[in-house]
């Protein structure tokens, strides 16, 4: 048995607001798996897409400062949101490559840069650090008969040089984790198509069109539900699903789970501890039908 796994934790803004159930289920699952998780004190926004969209230096500086704050807590940095994950890893990569940008960022945050801290998405921690075997050994209630469409979205795997989570075009890490906890996964076309997250405020019409195609593809593939590892994907697929059904006059009724919710369910955590009640598309009928509650 390896030593106990310990991580510093950067939840990101969404997990403290609209994606509270992702935060809750992450903490509960890690507790159940005996993985240590300590939140970085007074972390702040990574700048997400809007910052790098118009001001790369600001984006790099905000992320570099957060990486510095994370050094106060022992362990690799665990990140839940695909966008934060992408920004923090991109920052490490860009600053390691460019002396000019590195000097500018050091000046902006008024501190020397340390870029060797490891940044890991929760998926990597479950699939690789803990490992699929140990994960499977923690399962008390296999998700037998549940057909899941794993949705990667854009930023978990792309582009090529960072974040290096899995293959950029045909990743399997989500499916691997779900199979380890006994679920079935479906093959579908839109698992890596963008949901248009960045436009949810400014151009919701764009989001509705893109997200509809994703839900349609998952439904056609015979999925019972969708699983995501990003609060922004979740916002579009779950919160906007009813609206999309209205616009296109269809009925998807696809519950959208966070990875930590499905894995947590298999590890015997209760619906309350996983925040299942906070999901907008009610997952209870499906879970009862599959005898998973």
């Amino acid at each position, binding site marked *: 048995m390896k030593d106990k796994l310990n991580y510093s934790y950067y939840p990101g803004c969404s997990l403290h607001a609209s994606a509270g159930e992702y935060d809750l289920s992450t903490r509960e699952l890690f507790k159940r798996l005996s993985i240590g998780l300590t939140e970085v004190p007074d972390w702040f926004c990574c700048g*997400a897409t809007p910052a790098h969209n118009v001001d790369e230096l600001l984006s790099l500086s905000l992320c570099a400062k957060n990486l510095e704050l994370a050094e106060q807590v022992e362990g690799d940095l665990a990140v839940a949101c695909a966008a934060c994950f992408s920004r923090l890893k991109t920052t490490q990569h860009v600053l390691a490559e460019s002396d000019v940008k590195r000097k500018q960022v050091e000046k902006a945050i008024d501190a020397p840069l340390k870029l060797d801290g490891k940044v890991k998405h929760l998926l990597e921690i479950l699939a690789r650090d803990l490992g699929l075997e140990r994960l499977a050994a923690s399962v008390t209630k296999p998700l037998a008969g549940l057909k899941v469409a794993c949705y990667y979205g854009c930023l978990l795997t792309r582009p090529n040089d960072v974040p290096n989570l899995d293959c950029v075009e045909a990743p399997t890490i989500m499916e691997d984790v779900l199979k380890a906890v006994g679920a079935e996964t479906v093959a579908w076309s839109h698992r890596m198509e963008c949901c248009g997250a960045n436009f949810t405020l400014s151009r919701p019409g764009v989001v509705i069109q893109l997200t509809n195609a994703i839900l349609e593809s998952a439904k056609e593939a015979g999925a019972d539900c969708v699983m995501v590892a990003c609060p922004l994907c979740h916002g579009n697929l779950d919160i906007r699903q009813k609206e999309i059904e209205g616009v296109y006059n269809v009925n998807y009724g696809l519950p959208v789970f966070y990875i930590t919710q499905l894995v947590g369910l298999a590890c015997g955590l209760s619906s309350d501890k996983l925040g299942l009640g906070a999901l907008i598309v009610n997952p209870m009928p499906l879970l009862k039908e599959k005898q998973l509650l």
Partner: protein
Amino acid sequence: MIISQSTMDVDFVRKVEALSGTSVRRCFQCGKCSAGCPMATFMEHPPNRVVRLLQLGQWQRILAGRSIWYCASCETCSTRCPNKVHLASIMDALRKLSWDAEGPSKESYVQLANKLFLQNIRTYGRQYEMRLAAVFNVKSGQFLKDLMLGPKLISKGKLKMFHSKNKNMPEIEKIFTRIEEMRKKGEAL
């Protein structure tokens, strides 16, 4: 005027290349970026044409258009380019240049959302989605936008009403001001 490679504005292209850390000139127009772009249907110039217009010195048309603001930063183009042109970074650079010129672009909603997002970081340290959405609706004059989502989200505890204190607020403000100062002195683009 006949546009060709010789009408390229080399100074502008160099600026884009410096900001983005990638080559504009290496693109040979295979169109793979546009083929995979989920946003191409919303753009007046799809991604490969944005690069071609840069190569032909037509950058004013890009900065004035919507295409750069309709890029979702999904990185599909950068991932698939056979010439390793990091097009998503070129889009960032073009948005910055358009943004700094105070928006000759017709696309104002995306810019407004970006502006409010960055202001939120400076003021509160983190994003508070409800505040962001409410201010966006007021400033864009769309008072009823997404109103139906509100009660549902509140009842599910998904909208936080108040922001929490962050002891790094002075540090965040310093990052913003130091960057502004560096730019004033010409030490950064």
